[in-house]
Structure formats: structure tokens, C-alpha cells
């Protein structure tokens, strides 16, 4: 694609940067929007890891990303129950 880089590397970097900007400045300035936007750079990083052929890193990162999402949702529910 671009100067010998793998296509998933380039697409992963684009998704990573755009998703990070979307997480930093969410449009409805809201924690739920920020949490959903947090999934976008995770998949960008997954694509970058894929271009290095690291199968174990991909498995671990996918599982831990879902686990951290679960923990964030639990924290949000506790916070809304208190407020």
C-alpha cells in the first residue's frame, strides 16, 4: 500500500488516531459517548498488532478490552445508583 507497509498497519494507524481524537473530544460531551468511542481506537490498535503477526497479543488484548468495558459499565451503574 504505502511505501511497503502492510495495509492493516496503515488502516490501523488511521483508526487509532481518529478514535483517540473522538475519545478526547466526544460530541455530546457525555461519559456514555466516551465509553462507546473508546472501542474505536481499541480496534485500531488490534489492527496494528495484527500487522506484526502476534496471535497471543491479539487474543489477550481482545479479552481484556471486553473485560475493562464490563468494569466501566459496572462503575457507571454504581455512580448512577448513588446520584
Amino acid at each position, binding site marked *: 500500500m504505502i511505501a511497503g507497509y502492510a495495509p*492493516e498497519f496503515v488502516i490501523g494507524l488511521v*483508526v487509532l488516531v481518529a478514535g483517540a481524537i473522538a475519545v478526547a473530544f466526544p460530541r455530546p460531551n457525555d461519559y456514555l459517548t466516551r465509553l*462507546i468511542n473508546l*472501542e474505536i481506537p481499541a480496534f485500531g490498535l488490534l489492527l496494528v498488532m495484527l500487522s506484526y503477526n502476534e496471535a497471543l497479543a491479539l487474543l489477550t488484548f481482545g479479552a481484556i478490552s471486553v473485560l475493562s468495558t464490563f468494569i466501566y*459499565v459496572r462503575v457507571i451503574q454504581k455512580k*448512577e445508583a448513588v446520584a
Partner: protein
Amino acid sequence: MDEIVMAAAAILILIGMTAAIFSRDPFDKLISLSILIAGVFPFIVNRGLLDVAIALALIAPLSTVFILMACQRRAP
């Protein structure tokens, strides 16, 4: 043949990313995120990492379910 499929998957990723960033409703964002995830899978299969593709296909929808739990609590 392979290049056409990979170009289609790349277009799918870019469309999903743009729609997920610029849509405002949380449910619209989740649907667009599923489009992005669907575009990631052909790249994993193209590298030959079928075990990673199986595990990710089982694990990735769980995060959608967890975020739906947060959306449901928030809806009036």
C-alpha cells in the same frame, strides 16, 4: 480477487469508523461499531490467524451487550 475483498474490508472499516464517530445516538454508535468490527475480521483471516478470529468473534459481541446494559439504564 483477494485485493478486491481486502479493499472492501478497508472501506467497511473506514465507513464504520466515520459513522461511529459522527453519529450522536448511542444505539447508532453501537450499530456503526459492529460495521467496524465486521471489517476487521477479513484482515485477521487473511493473515491465517483463524484461532484469533474464532476467539474474537465470540468475545467482541460481549462488549456490545455490556454497553447496551448501560444504555438501557439511561433510557427513560
